[in-house]
């Protein structure tokens, strides 16, 4: 019962009206960017346009949301010094952190699915829901939410001001590594998410394909991608629970 309560409380905090409004504006912006993209490249098939925009924008929203919401699991409580109230309640610490992580995962998945819908409607118009790639992306986004939130929460337990590190990972590492030759691409979560979403390689080339991580020539199989993401998520969740149970988390004295 307490786990359900913790998840719902954390979700309600994430979904405060001001925050929802901010994310809503981002969805409108994504829709506008989608329309603009179609305007500047009218010859490109809509399926290719959607996939390009999805890799370029939707998966970035996923990473951005994961970096922000994973901070709300514990790091934000430490920063705003309210961790003291959570840490002295009769709740097993693993339950506390895993419930809050679950809430963050739900929030990130919801946000990134909304982003996918926004881009889909901007590209396909009223046929947005019948976009054949939407369901595939949904799989990738849900798995991505779990993987990124668990990884980013772990880094937030290890270091202060982890959001910066997580954002560098999301927008630097994930962009660069997915394009590298050899086996380095396997070190990027985005590689596995693309495999799970069965994303076709961009045919357009150019800097946009670089940003969407389509320059790499090697691919992982779908089954390898599912397995790797499952192992990563479970390992990170276990590590978060162990770490939070083992170490002290106090209000940050220098935080204002």
């Amino acid at each position: 019962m307490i786990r359900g309560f913790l998840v719902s409380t954390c979700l309600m905090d994430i979904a405060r009206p001001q925050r929802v409004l901010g994310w809503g504006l981002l969805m409108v912006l994504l829709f506008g960017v989608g329309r603009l993209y179609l305007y500047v490249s009218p010859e490109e098939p809509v399926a290719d346009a959607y996939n390009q925009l999805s890799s370029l924008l939707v998966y970035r929203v996923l990473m951005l949301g994961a970096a922000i919401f994973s901070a709300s699991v514990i790091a934000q409580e430490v920063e705003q010094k309210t961790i003291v109230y959570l840490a002295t309640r009769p709740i097993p610490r693993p339950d506390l952190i895993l419930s809050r992580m679950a809430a963050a995962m739900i929030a990130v998945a919801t946000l990134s699915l909304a982003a996918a819908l926004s881009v889909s409607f901007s590209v396909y118009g009223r046929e947005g829901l019948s976009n054949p790639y939407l369901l595939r992306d949904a799989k990738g986004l849900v798995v991505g939410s779990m993987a990124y939130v668990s990884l980013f929460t772990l880094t937030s337990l290890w270091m202060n001001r982890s959001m910066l590190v997580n954002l560098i990972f999301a927008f630097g590492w994930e962009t660069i590594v997915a394009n590298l030759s050899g086996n380095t691409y396997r070190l990027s979560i985005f590689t596995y998410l693309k495999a799970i979403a069965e994303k076709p390689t961009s045919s357009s080339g150019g800097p946009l394909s670089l940003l969407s991580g389509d320059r790499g020539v090697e691919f992982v199989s779908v089954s390898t991608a599912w397995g790797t993401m499952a192992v990563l998520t479970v390992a990170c969740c276990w590590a978060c629970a162990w770490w939070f149970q083992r170490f002290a988390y106090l209000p940050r004295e220098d935080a204002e």
Partner: protein
Amino acid sequence: MIELDHASRWYAQVIGLNDVTCEIGPGVTALLGMNGAGKTTMMRLITGQLRPTTGKVRVFGMNPFANPEVYKLLGYCPDVDDFYEHMTGREFVELMARMSGMIPDEASSRTDRMLQRVGMAERADRKIGGYSKGMRQRIKLAQAMIHEPEVVLLDEPLNGLDPVGRREFIDLLAGFGEQGKIVLVSSHILFEVEQMTRSLLLLHRGRLLAVGDLRVIRELIDKHPHRIRIETTEPRTVAEKIAALPFVLSIQFDPSGRALEIQTKEADRFYSFLPTLSLECGLPIEGFSSPDNSLESVFGYLVDS
């Protein structure tokens, strides 16, 4: 029962608590010490937010670190003044009640009762962000007591309270103590502590300097020559009158020319002489204070002895 057995806590090269051994039983106990003495570290060890670097801490025989069984029996009012500012006081206390394992109806009714008890019932539906310091202290106390714990730890709870609030707070704590609960209150103000309890733990630079009755501390203060500072526009005339008194040991003039400091072994006799000095001799005494009542002096005496 709270037990500390040679408990020490280091923060890298800095020692927060140094080899403290003590037992804290039912009733109100004050944890007295200057800022940086280790009061909050001791509170955090007892509330299981920190592990001791060496030694042991036990609450009812259990290791408190991240232990939900201990948290069922323990309420903590922290020194930090931070909340979920967007919540109302009622929402916050109810959230803490739910997190203590209560079902919604029980949490709601207990929240109402507790808000009434801490004098926040009328103001509980306002956002915490708009609360005064005193209101925030009351809400902190409410969240600490919401699950009716056996042990209540309050870290500097009187900070920011007005005199009426202080009195109410002290009466509330006395009530908890009379119910047989273990109440540990930290403070750095001797006068404040004297109003709450006679049982105390005195911390200084991480060490437990004294344990026991506050009267012992008071006697120690009285045993030493007592310094009294008198503020007056005519220090030389006042000094002339005072110098004739047999229980005055020394007189020192303040460089400002508006005060003098005397030393006496019989502070009570001197205090009873002061009205005479002012009324019968007509000397303009604007104020007096005793620097020896400060905690620093007490620590000085204890270290010397």
